[in-house]
């Protein structure tokens, strides 16, 4: 039972991550490769504020959302000018830079040793230190994020974002300030992934830079692409499948030395197969070009 709850908490965290990434990739047409870096900033800010300064969970999470939101300018401002491949390269550079900072700024992040002893979340004096309670918290947060995105994407803001994705020049010709939409989309997506990061840090109690590498960004993007972009079901389906794959492999009794490689091989095959046979993903709507 605990194992299932543990997986469901992970699933909740990844649903928040993929929904926020889908806002950029599926609705905004912005192929972001630095999402794991922002996930890391959220996790590290929450952890440092709670461990070093002794802040409570809620103020630490709010502060981490604000800091990550501000740092989202690192990708949103270049997105004004750069599109498609060039933007991918730029977000890749941001990912690598932030990862290097997390790894090498040992004075603050303790580098490869990571941060240990992150306290469990406490909300209104109630400590969430059991698996069922943590599952309830992560599910509530995932639902709140889902509702916010659902309302936003059905509003004129969401429609304008889709218009920008479909044809930016035509949208600008209709008076849409696409620079502002990009800024807002990154701000919302990075804030949400910071929230997921904070949740992750307090759940596992220990973080180090290896959880926020480029591989992690690629995994997040794979979830969105495999599940499908441009609607709500897609990212959830993608997160479910890509979390399930390594867990299923555990029961196949593959030697440990090969398991990680086989997992990567399956991810790669999945993406290539999806790109060829179903570019809009398993449950997606928008055919990412």
């Amino acid at each position: 039972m605990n194992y299932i709850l543990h997986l469901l908490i992970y699933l909740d965290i990844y649903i928040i991550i993929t929904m926020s990434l889908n806002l950029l990739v599926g609705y905004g047409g912005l192929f972001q490769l630095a999402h794991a870096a922002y996930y890391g900033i959220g996790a590290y800010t929450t952890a440092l504020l709670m461990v070093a300064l002794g802040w409570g969970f809620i103020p630490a999470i709010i502060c981490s959302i604000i800091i990550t939101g501000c740092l989202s300018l690192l990708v949103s401002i270049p997105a004004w000018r750069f599109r498609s491949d060039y933007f991918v390269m730029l977000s890749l550079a941001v990912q690598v830079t932030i990862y290097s900072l997390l790894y090498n700024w040992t004075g603050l992040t303790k580098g490869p040793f990571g941060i240990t002893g992150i306290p469990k979340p406490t909300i209104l004096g109630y400590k969430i230190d059991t698996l069922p309670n943590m599952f309830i918290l992560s599910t509530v947060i995932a639902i709140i994020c889902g509702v916010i995105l659902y309302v936003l994407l059905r509003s004129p803001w969401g429609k304008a974002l889709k218009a920008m994705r479909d044809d930016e020049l035509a949208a600008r010709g209709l008076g849409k300030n696409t620079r502002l939409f990009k800024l807002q989309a990154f701000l919302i997506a990075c804030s949400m992934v910071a929230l997921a990061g904070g949740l992750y840090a307090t759940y596992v109690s220990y973080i180090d830079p290896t959880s926020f590498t480029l591989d992690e960004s690629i995994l997040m993007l794979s979830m969105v692409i495999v599940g499908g972009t441009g609607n709500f079901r897609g990212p959830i389906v993608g997160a479910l499948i890509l979390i399930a794959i390594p867990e299923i492999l555990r029961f196949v009794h593959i030697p440990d030395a090969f398991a990680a490689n086989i997992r990567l091989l399956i991810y790669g095959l999945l993406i290539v197969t999806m790109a060829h046979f179903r570019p809009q993903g398993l449950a997606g709507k928008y055919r990412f070009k």
Partner: protein
Amino acid sequence: MDAMTENIKRKEERKSHADVVFSTNNLVKAFGGQVILNDISFNIRKGEVVLLRGENGSGKTTLVNILTGNLEPDRGEIHININGDKEVFIWPRPWWKEINPLDHFTPERLAWEGIGRVWQDIRLFPTMTALENVVVASPEQSGENPVLALFSKKAKKENRQNTKKSSEWLSMLGLGDRLDSSCDKISLGQMKRVAIARAIQAGAKILFLDEPLSGLDKEGISEVMGYLETLAKKNSITLVIVEHVFNIPTVLKLANTVWTLSNGKLMINKSDETIDDKTKEVNPFHDLLRQIAGENGKTHTEKLPNGAKLATVIPEGLGDSQSVLEVKVLVVKRGIRTVIDRLSINLKKGHLYILEAPNGWGKSSLLDVIAGIHPLESGKIILKGKELNTIPTHERIKIGLAYLRSQQSVFSSLSVKEQRKLSNANIPLFDNSLNGKSKGSYLSGGEKQKLLIEMLPEADVCLLDEPMIGLDKGSIEKLVELIKQMIEKGKTLLITVPEYKEV
């Protein structure tokens, strides 16, 4: 008496000046040293309908790009006075304006001033419905602020009002039953009407329309023209219409001013002063049939399903010849919609075929299927005795097929010279009117079409999808000459044209 006349004159001048909503002074634009627009000055008045015409590559699209904020001129001034707030842009711009991100000459800034554009390639948002395309254009929506979108009731109410207004616009355009149709599934005429409604919903008071009638059948043309007339006369919206030579007579019925771009200069006339040979009714297809058939040639027309006609021209001296391309009981689908249902045609060597059909009939789909670009649902396609169903496009070209698509897609990053080299097109067909050094992306619509015609490979069967789109009168004559030569060489041609009354 003189003083009185002068007074009246001055008053009229003042009144006329007060009506000016958009003007330019000495606009200059050059690309790579070649001056495209040279000292362009004009005034546009409220409710005026302007026809902008010119040969291919004369700079019509460049001018429209500048006037809608998509391109900056090298020198000159633009004055906008639509909403009472005068806005002036002067080039060259001082450096401190260049670095100010809030003071740029952009399409969105001009859209806020009330300038709209309907693009030649329409550019609807393909993943949205017709209604969503129009609603999204509504200006100053509170719901475009994410915080208000989440919490404000006013934003939701405003959105409902915009949806209502947009559906009224679309219903007025005869699209009341297509509100929820996806924009990539409606016909070209409907797309053009949605694009006009979208620009109006965005608050356009001056609307630039780039070839709004091209590719439309006679019904589509009368629908769009009727709507433009309502906009100009009832809603006092100023229209600047760039139109192709075939449709100029139609636009002249509505236009009161004609701008002619030639050698970088703009000539401005009243519309009744410009009935010259360039604007007389042109029916190129009728001429084509007559010219190719010759005095003793035969022509006959066969009726196809859903209002299409296939005219066949058998040149003089050529009797019944062997089949080169057979289409048997062809069924083609686009998504869930059946576009072509059990069509059979048989094309013979040395004959010219003109397929005339209303928009949405599936002309382009038919040619795409023959060329192997779009899959067929069922049926058979046989080229020179070989069944093509499972053969990829490049193999079909080797067997003897050439295809000119209507999308005007040239290689944007290659120069004209490089593209000619790539396709072994050694002889420029249009009197060197294309600059060999120009990159594909800088070519005008007409120039792209010329290049694509030059690049057509030698083949036994040529499929030409609306080959005259974007071409000026001289180039059409060249094309007709080329088609004539191909027929004389024994090639088979299948040309599609929009529904045209006289054919």
